[in-house]
């Protein structure tokens, strides 16, 4: 149900909590009737809150093709996220409002649809990518080859690690490339930062790139992409700015003439040249 004002949340129930990494847990949320709280598109976000503790924006990490629930993969960094990690159990209530923001242009034939897609992710930022990746797998015939390049600090810090190995890597016409920053005895895969690994693999440019990660990773990967002949028009990414309202009013996420909560979080990289570099 849509509340009369977009600032007013509905109540949700946490049905499952999955420890992904030492500091990331995935929280599964449904509404009080046990249904998905609202519809969304890949890349959109929601405001979750515990009254008296805090409210913050999180990417919905499940795809719209999942009509039963929404997942949020949440890293502990502050008031709300610490509370969620330390105090919450399945069955607990939480407030939820959304969806907020634009989405990855998954159904646009000039953008992602029908194309080969290279997903590049770093750390917790695989969360928004997971929504698109699920969407692509659930509509597999609508897309070409899929490459997924994902890196984290250590093996333990790879979110969705089991799902990546057991499910994503097994999909048709799909390649998964994982890397960790520092060597680890239990790891036989690549060691090194995402941009270096990317260079080493050397992808062809006949694809669109969907990339999410810490700003520093984005910067370096983008430099490598351009060096390898990709055009900014082929690359989509997300911005993360402090948000409060989610509806373009509180002013917090404003950069240039854009409000990231409404005009973003998804941007085509060439669009970022049109706004001040305050992200």
């Amino acid at each position, binding site marked *: 149900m849509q*509340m*009369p*004002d*977009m*600032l*007013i*949340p*509905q*109540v949700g129930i946490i049905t499952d909590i999955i420890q992904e990494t030492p500091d990331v847990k995935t929280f599964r949320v449904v509404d009080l009737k046990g249904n998905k709280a609202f519809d969304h598109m890949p890349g959109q976000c929601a405001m979750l809150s515990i*009254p*008296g*503790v*805090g*409210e913050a924006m999180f990417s919905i990490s499940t795809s719209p093709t999942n009509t039963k629930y929404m997942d949020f993969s949440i*890293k502990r*960094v*502050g008031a709300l996220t610490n509370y969620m990690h330390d105090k*919450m*159990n399945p*069955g*607990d*209530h*939480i*407030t939820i409002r959304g969806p907020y923001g634009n989405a990855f242009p998954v159904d646009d034939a000039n953008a992602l649809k029908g194309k080969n897609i290279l997903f590049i992710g770093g750390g917790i930022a695989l969360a928004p990518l997971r929504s698109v990746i699920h969407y692509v797998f659930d509509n597999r015939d609508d897309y070409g080859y899929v490459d997924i390049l994902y890196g984290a600090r250590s093996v333990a810090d790879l979110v969705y690690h089991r799902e990546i190995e057991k499910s994503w890597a097994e999909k048709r016409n799909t390649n998964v490339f994982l890397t960790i920053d520092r060597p680890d005895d239990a790891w036989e895969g690549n060691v090194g930062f995402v941009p270096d690994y990317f260079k080493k693999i050397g992808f062809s440019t006949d694809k669109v790139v969907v990339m999410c990660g*810490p*700003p520093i990773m984005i910067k370096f990967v983008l430099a490598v992409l351009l060096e390898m002949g990709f055009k900014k028009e082929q690359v989509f990414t997300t911005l*993360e*700015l*402090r948000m*409060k*309202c989610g*509806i*373009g*009013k*509180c*002013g*917090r996420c*404003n*950069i*240039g*003439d854009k409000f990231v909560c*409404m005009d973003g979080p998804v941007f085509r990289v060439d669009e970022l040249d*049109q706004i*001040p570099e*305050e*992200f």
Partner: protein
Amino acid sequence: MSKTYKIALDKLPELYAQTAENRNLYLPIRRGGTLNFEAWHKDAAVDLYGLKTANTPKDLFLPQSEDLYTIKMDGTNIEVFAREFFDKPFAIFGIKACDIEAIKVLDNIYLSKQPVDMFYKARRDNAVLISLACNEPKNACFCHAFGLDAGNPGGDVTTWINGDNLYIQGQTDKGSAYVEEMSGLLEAADFGDLSGLQANIRETAQNLPYAKLPLDKGFTSEDMMAMFNSEQWGSFHRACIGCGTCTYSCPTCSCYDIKDHDGGDCKGVTRFRCWDSCMYPDFTLMAHGNNRLTQKERFRQRFMHKLMYHPMNYEGQFGCVGCGRCINKCPVSLNIVKIIKSLAEVKEDANA
């Protein structure tokens, strides 16, 4: 144009009383030396001759702090109670041209794009805006620079103090209905009576020290990145102490924070919103860093938003209305007019 009426100034208390019969009435009241829009009562020290109120009519649409909803917590169970936000009808009398334009700025931000802000909308729907022409625009006023006419301030109803009378004219359906409701107190008047007064006001406004600003130079969207990257931002902010006074006293500043306070019995929480300021360091602070690290970036944001980003989003409407309040109140005398002039000079140099 709708009909013009007048009422003798000494009969205004009757007009106030009749207005207040069916709605709350707010108008400039002087208390402890400060002029502000406050609720009328029969002993209130109404002052229609003060130029600008300290606070702005914004307070009546976007209170400094307002409850959004309450939440009951029972163990880990949560219940949300939306709040009744349909306040009583009200009228604001005595709004100057700059503050009327400021409400249009707020309307654009809060109402023109989906989703609209229902709290703001409820109050706007309930309000009659009664403007008053400025008899004597002064020193820091620069509404003229933004194309505003202090002699014809608009609103739902426009009024003018002309000689011993207050002239009144409905501008919108809502305003005309109000004038109709007051008609028992009003007598017909000739709009032509106001031409001398209006000419005087315009003449005064145009000749104020800040009235002519080069807003046609460097303030269009193509110039945005150049203006953002101007080296002058490296020095403009130097004196700024980040107090936020300029944002709190501005009739168009509308950024807010959302926070919780305890209901007291520890079982309930009230979530409220309150004014916030882009001049504060924690405005954009995030777990992974802050995208506006120093006062330079924060200062730049305030001015770029008013002079560039807002006009880009709303068909050239500036986010500053030239009321001059921030100029009068800044403790270190920073001045938006000087910033506009310096930025425009850069553009001129670039063209030369």
